[in-house]
């Protein structure tokens, strides 16, 4: 068999591929957050950035979007497959359960937090990227017509329930990243006593910055309602 296929069929290989997809997605989140921070600079700055990405750099950005979609679907598929196999491997459960590891519950929560994030993406991407649920208007800056994503976001986050849904989703994202960032490194074999503490701290700091950043922006947008 082709060695790449046998790698993909093995438990270790699939974990490694799932981790690589996860790493790709969490680097994307960082880029996404830096872009969103332009909202703080106002509508023109944010909308022009979106225009730059989609119109001026479209040939690069759209293929990247498809690669992100592919990574997301693959990550999800491998995650669910792994979870189902793990249920099968543990046919009978202990009547009394205890643990010596005393770790957080995040690691046991990945399928649930992942499912929540799937729902989130099904709401978020069609809404803000494709304008499926509500059409995104246009705005004109100095003769250039562009999508008014800023207006759409402000309109969306003015509703408390939507903001709450986003903030809860970022909390789920935090639990997913808090285990996932560190776990993907272990699956890829990156574990060294000299760097383990640093890697673990960087992993949690990264999860806090990403989720805190997105949540803060959603709450900030909610406070702008009526302004």
């Amino acid at each position, binding site marked *: 068999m082709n060695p790449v296929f046998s*790698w993909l069929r093995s438990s270790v290989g699939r974990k490694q591929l799932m981790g690589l997809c996860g790493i790709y997605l969490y680097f994307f989140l960082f880029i996404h957050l830096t872009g969103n921070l332009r909202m703080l600079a106002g509508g023109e700055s944010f909308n022009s950035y979106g225009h730059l990405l989609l119109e001026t750099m479209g040939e690069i950005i759209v293929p990247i979007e498809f690669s992100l979609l592919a990574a997301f679907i693959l990550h999800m598929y491998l995650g669910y497959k792994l979870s189902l196999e793990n249920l099968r491997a543990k046919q009978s459960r202990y009547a009394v359960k205890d643990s010596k590891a005393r770790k957080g519950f995040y690691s046991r929560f990945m399928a649930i937090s992942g499912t929540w994030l799937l729902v989130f993406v099904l709401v978020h991407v069609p809404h803000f990227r494709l304008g499926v649920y509500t059409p995104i208007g246009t705005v004109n800056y100095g003769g250039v017509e562009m999508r008014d994503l800023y207006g759409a976001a402000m309109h969306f986050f003015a509703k408390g329930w939507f903001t709450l849904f986003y903030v809860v989703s970022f909390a789920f994202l935090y639990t997913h990243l808090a285990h996932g960032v560190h776990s993907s490194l272990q699956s890829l074999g990156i574990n060294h006593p000299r760097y383990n503490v640093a890697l673990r701290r960087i992993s949690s700091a990264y999860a806090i910055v990403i989720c805190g950043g997105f949540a803060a922006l959603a709450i900030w947008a909610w406070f702008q309602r009526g302004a």
Partner: protein
Amino acid sequence: MSGKLNFKLRLWRQKDKVSEGKFQEVEAKNISPDMSFLEMLDEVNNDLMRKGEEPVAFESDCREGICGTCSLVVNGLPHGPEKGTTVCQLFMRKFRDGQTISVEPWRAAAFPVIKDLVTDRDAFDQIIAAGGFVSVNTGGAQDANALPVRKCDADTAMDAAACIGCGACVAACPNASAMLFTAAKISHLGHLPQGQPERERRALRMVAKMDELGFGNCSNHYECEAACPKEISVEHIARMNRDYGLSALLGTERERGNTGAG
């Protein structure tokens, strides 16, 4: 004599592989605090036999923590509440007088229960047979110093070789994954010069066998490391992941065509 302890035991009783099991409540009376958990069970079995009942089946051999035969889940913890201890080295003074103690077998699809608290751990032997060895040509004994091994490598290999193959890692894992066991064996041989020629094939074959036998996938909960009576580190799992990933994607030495002395 004062200081004797009494316990309420809930013992898992299961007639055979196919029967449904259930708990049997048994009193353990007049137990010396200096008895090991298995000696306490011996006493309970004596009582059961005196009453004409069938004794509870459990496995043990060396009873000094080095053979890996004993395999009981005590109050939800493989080998009981002590860290770095097999259940045969767990003493009854660690329990409160009058305490209820539940005793269950390892639970994993790859380790079916044969009877009561005894499971079939043949799957581990199959993983070893798939690659957990070094091939040595027979002949005169080699000089002891012919193969120098760095102290740090010898130490790490020994840390991994401390694995007694009891299966507590699988029993503790929420996914019943055998990664820590397999990793310990791969790492033990992989750190020594004798293990190098077969290092890549070993990783590929042992992981493939482990998958085939129906163990779960590792999702890095690290329950295995915490439950291991020999306190083997999950660093060995990372090392196996590296060895496996590189061997699978880059091929073994044979495929790369650089076998032989040229």
